[in-house]
């Protein structure tokens, strides 16, 4: 009895129908929080006396960085669930999470680079965090490339799930190694301290943005997984009926 929800969750159709109710809530909430946090961070939060206004990039850089790492775990764990319990829905979540994670990692990389220009006077610094982020980005790209390389969907899922799991085991090691490498080569002049000196009035909008990004991540994952469900179940009657009934609406 207790396992029934688990098996039902494994049914893509059940999930598709159930989840349509969540989308409006998630969409409204995450977009509203994103806008609120952005306006707060851009216009109302106090200017940092050391970095000036460029620090306002933190409000997107840090949440994006959080989610790119958390997203990797979402991807790897759902991949593992798909491998172990052969749950189709988990495979679809994994495939969706790979793309979303890669996009968010890219965002945090680019915002980090742009932030570097006014702060350090250069677009790219081999800072520990940015370097780890770059490696993380490569890991995502590897999973996506492997996923795309296989014609057969089932093999693609399993292979990329294994790669994601191997990556998950490696991520802490990679992060620690890069940290260690950075302390070895760290030039004394560059010191990245904005977070240790951050003032509470600067922190609240960051908190809002972090929550907003998490909600947005859930929304994006949901939308992407749902479209993946439709694609993979396109030969079934319920999807075809949905197509007939849906016409153009959302």
């Amino acid at each position, binding site marked *: 009895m207790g396992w029934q929800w688990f098996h039902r969750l494994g049914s893509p159709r059940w999930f598709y129908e159930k989840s349509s109710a969540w989308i409006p809530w998630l969409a409204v909430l995450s977009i509203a929080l994103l806008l609120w946090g952005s306006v707060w961070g851009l216009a109302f939060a106090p200017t940092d006396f050391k970095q000036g206004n460029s620090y306002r990039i933190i409000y997107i850089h840090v949440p994006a960085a959080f989610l790119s790492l958390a997203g990797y775990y979402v991807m790897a764990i759902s991949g593992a669930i798909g491998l172990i319990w052969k749950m189709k829905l988990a495979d679809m979540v994994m495939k969706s999470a790979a793309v979303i994670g890669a996009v968010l990692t890219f965002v945090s990389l680019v915002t980090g680079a742009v932030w570097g220009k006014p702060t350090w006077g250069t677009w790219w610094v081999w800072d520990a965090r940015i370097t780890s982020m770059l490696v993380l980005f490569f890991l995502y790209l590897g999973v996506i490339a492997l996923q795309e390389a296989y014609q057969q969907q089932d093999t693609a899922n399993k292979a990329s799930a294994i790669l994601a799991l191997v990556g998950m085991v490696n991520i802490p090691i990679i992060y620690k190694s890069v940290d260690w490498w950075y302390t070895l080569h760290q030039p004394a002049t560059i010191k990245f301290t904005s977070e240790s000196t951050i003032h509470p009035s600067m922190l609240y909008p960051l908190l809002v943005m972090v929550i907003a990004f998490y909600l947005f991540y859930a929304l994006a994952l949901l939308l992407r997984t749902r479209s993946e469900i439709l694609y993979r179940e396109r*030969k079934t009657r319920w999807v075809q009926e949905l197509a007939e009934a849906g016409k153009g609406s959302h």
Partner: protein
Amino acid sequence: MANPLIQLEALSCERDERVLFSGLDLSVFAGDVIQIEGPNGSGKTTLLRVLTTTSADFSGEIRWLGQPLSKARLDYLNNLLYIGHLPGIKKGLTPGENLRWFCGLNQGHQRMSMEEALAAVGLAGYEDVPCYQLSAGQNRRVALARLYLTPARVWILDEPFTAIDKQGVANLEKLMAEHAAGGGCVLLTTHQELDLAGVRKVNLLGYRQVRS
């Protein structure tokens, strides 16, 4: 009635989101020679691959000596010999070296010497010739020499007669009959008509799912 060696219960195979066959129940007894039939694409090779455990695209249960395969896997594999489309022969090695590797994996359980086995498939004197110098048919026969060596009870053969001459076919049929009579079983696919008494035929077309 003796207990079956292999039991398939409600076996269904799905590949590329297409159901190849479903609801296949089959009991394989000692002494059986079973020919799997069906047109191309009906899942013959897939069924054989499922039976060798290299394919997991199935639902249903496979039992070995009454136990689910997941529990009796090692014992089953220890009793299995599979020759597939690809002969599984290293071109860079000699027939003797190839067979030595196979025997090494099942160490110490061979029924005759490698020379005898090669002689039985008509390759006497070829022990030390690299396989890339042999013809496709001869390579095929190197793979078939494993049948003489193995103590395995279950033989799964995918098109074993490909590139084999008439005499070779007759020898192979005789070998299969002996194997079955000795308490083994053979599952095979072939386009040829087998000259063997008591061959059971299973046509996969009969298990094709009808879409409602």
